[in-house]
C-alpha cells in the first residue's frame, strides 16, 4: 500500500482499539486506483501509539463483473454474538460515469483479521429511488435492532464535462443484519446548496439522544478548500427524524497542516470513558487519519 488511510472505523478489543481503514496501491497505467480495507491496532490506553499494522487486506477484491471488483471502501465492523460482521462499499467501474458502488457484507470468525463474503453480490444495491452509488455504510445496533446508515446517489452532475456525484444520507433497518428494509428518504436536509453532497454518516447514542456527525460538500469544485468537505452535525430522538445543527460539530479545518483544506469522514467512538473523533484531512485521507478527544460534555 502506498498512500491513503481512508474511512477510519473502530472496533474496541481487549487491549487495543482496531481501526479499520481503506488504502490504495499505486495507480495503474491509466491512473486508476483500487481500494482495499485493512486495519491498524492502537493501544487502548494511549491510542496515539500504534501497536500493529495489518499486513494484508481483510478481504480480497471481488471476481470479474461483480460489484466489488475494483474496491472495498469503506468498511464498518460490528459484533454479532460469536462473530463479527463487516459492511462495506464495493466499487465497480462504469463507462459513462467513473464508478458505481453497492454495499456488501462479510463475516469474520477469527476476531476481525479476515472476512468472507455472504455471497458474491451486494446486500444493498440500486433500487427505485436510489439509482446508483449505494455506499459508505456504517453499521450500528441500537435498541436490539440493526441500523445501516449509508449514502445513496441522486444525481451525476456534469462539471466541465466531468461527472461528479451527489449523494445523500439514508437509513435501512433489519432484525438480523442480513435482510434490510430501506427507509427510502433522505435523513439530512441540504444546507449549503440544493445539490449538497453528504457522506459518511456516523451515529452514536449519548445523553438519551442520537447524534450524527457526517461530512458534506458542494456538488462541484470541491477538491480544494472552498467547496471541500466539512463536518456537519445532527441529532435525533428516533433515528428517523434528524435536526441539523452544524456548528455543534465543533471541528473545523485547521489554519495549516494536514487538515487545513478539508476535514471529512468523522467517526466518533467511546472507549474507557472518553469520546474520540477520528477524521480525515486534505485529499480525503491521502495523508492518513487523525484523532481528536472530546473536551466538553455531550449535550
Amino acid at each position, binding site marked *: 500500500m502506498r498512500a491513503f488511510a481512508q474511512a477510519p472505523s473502530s472496533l474496541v478489543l481487549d487491549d487495543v482499539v482496531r481501526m479499520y481503514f481503506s488504502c490504495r496501491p499505486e495507480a495503474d497505467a491509466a491512473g486508476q486506483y483500487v481500494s482495499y480495507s485493512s486495519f491498524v491496532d492502537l493501544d487502548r490506553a494511549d491510542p496515539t501509539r500504534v501497536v500493529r499494522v495489518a499486513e494484508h487486506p481483510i478481504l480480497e477484491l471481488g*471476481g*470479474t*463483473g*461483480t*460489484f466489488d*471488483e*475494483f474496491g472495498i471502501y469503506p468498511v464498518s465492523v460490528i459484533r454479532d454474538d460469536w462473530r463479527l460482521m463487516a459492511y462495506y462499499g464495493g466499487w*465497480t*467501474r*462504469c*463507462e*459513462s*460515469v467513473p464508478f*458505481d458502488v*453497492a454495499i456488501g*457484507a462479510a463475516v469474520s470468525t477469527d476476531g476481525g483479521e479476515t472476512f468472507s463474503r*455472504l*455471497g*458474491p*453480490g*451486494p*446486500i444493498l*444495491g*440500486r*433500487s*427505485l*429511488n*436510489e*439509482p*446508483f*452509488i449505494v455506499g459508505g455504510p456504517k453499521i450500528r445496533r441500537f435498541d436490539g435492532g440493526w441500523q445501516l446508515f449509508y449514502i445513496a*446517489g441522486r444525481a*451525476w452532475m*456534469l462539471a466541465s464535462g466531468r*461527472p461528479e*456525484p451527489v449523494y445523500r444520507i439514508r437509513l435501512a433497518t433489519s432484525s438480523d443484519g442480513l435482510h434490510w428494509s430501506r427507509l427510502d428518504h433522505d435523513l439530512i436536509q441540504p444546507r449549503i446548496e440544493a445539490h449538497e453532497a453528504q457522506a459518511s454518516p456516523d451515529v452514536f447514542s449519548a445523553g438519551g439522544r442520537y447524534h450524527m456527525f457526517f461530512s458534506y460538500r458542494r456538488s462541484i469544485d470541491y477538491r480544494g478548500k472552498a467547496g471541500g468537505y466539512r463536518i456537519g452535525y445532527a441529532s435525533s430522538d428516533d433515528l428517523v427524524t434528524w435536526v441539523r445543527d452544524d456548528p455543534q460539530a465543533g471541528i473545523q479545518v485547521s489554519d495549516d497542516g494536514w487538515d487545513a483544506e478539508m476535514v471529512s469522514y468523522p467517526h466518533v467512538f467511546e472507549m474507557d470513558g472518553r469520546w474520540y473523533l477520528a477524521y480525515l484531512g486534505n485529499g480525503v485521507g491521502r495523508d492518513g487519519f487523525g484523532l481528536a478527544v472530546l473536551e466538553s460534555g455531550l449535550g
Partner: protein
Amino acid sequence: MSVAPRLRWRRLGHVFDVREARLPDGFMGFAQAPQALVLDDRVRIYFSARSVDANGGKYRSHVLFADFAPSLDRLIAVSPEPVISRGGLGCFDEHGIFPMNVVRVGEEIRAYTCGWSRRVSVSVETAIGLAFSRDGGRTFDRVGPGPILSATVREPFLVGDPSVRVIGGTFHMWYIFGTAWRRVPGSSIPERTYKIGHAVSVDGVDWTRDEGVQIIPDRLGPDEAQALPSVVEIDGAFHMVFCYRETADFRTNVARGYRLGHALSADLISWDRADADLVLTGDAGAWDSDMQCYPHIYEHAGQVYLLYNGNEFGRFGFGAAVLER
C-alpha cells in the same frame, strides 16, 4: 405428472421484416424481443431497435412498437419514436432497454424493463425497472430512476429479462440472473452465463425472490445460458418457452447459438424440461433458419401466439407462430 402435451406451433413467417418496415430515422435495424399488448382493434408489438452512438460506435437499444391487425398479417403502423425516454447519466438503463415486457393489470398498462448500462471490465450490467403508461401504451414513464430488481447477494449481476403475469391474484415474474462472467477460448472479452429465476409479489412493485435459485434444469450443462422466459397456461398446465445457448462461441456457430427451450409445470414451482415437445412446423425462412431466440407468448381471441426472433439475434426483425390445437 401426466404425459406432457406437445406444443405444435405453426409458423406464420417473418411478420416484421425491418428491411421493409420503415423504422424511424436514427435506427439502423434490429427488432429484438417482441412483446405483445392486445388492444381493441389491433395487437401492439413492442421491440428493441438499435441506434449507433456517434461517439465510439456502440449500440444502444430503444423500445419502439409496431401495430398489427390481430391476425398478424397486416402491419398498421410503426411508432414514430421510442415509447420511453433514455435513462439518465449513471442510471441502470442509460445505454438501452431490451427487452420491455408490457402487462395489463386491470385498467393499468405497465412495463417491466430490462435496463442496460456499460461497464469497464465486462461489457454490461442489467437490472429490472418499472414504468407506467397513461395513454394506452403509446408512451411510458418510469416509476423512479432506479430499478425495482437488481443484483443481490446470490444474484451478483445481470438481473434482467422480466416477464410478468398475474395468476390467481399473485404477480409472478420470471427473469434471469447472471451466474458467471468468464474468459473463454476465442473471445477477447468475458462472456456471460445466466439462468432463469422466479419472483412473486402482491403489487408488482415489491418482489420476493427465490434468490439465486435456478428453476429450469440445464440441458447443455452449467455453461447453458437461458434467457427470455415467457409463461402461458394451456389446458391446466403451465408452459414456459425460453431460449438457451452455450456460453462460448454462440454468436456465429449455429450449433452453439440460441434455440427455443420449453418447460412444463403444474404448480409454478417445479418445472420439467421438455424441449422436444416444442415443435415449430412449416418451413424455416431465410430469417430464422439458423437461430430462434427471444420468445414471447400471448393469447388473443382463443388463439395462442408465439413471437420470436431469428438469425443474428433479430437483426432482420421478428416472426410469429400460432399454436395448433
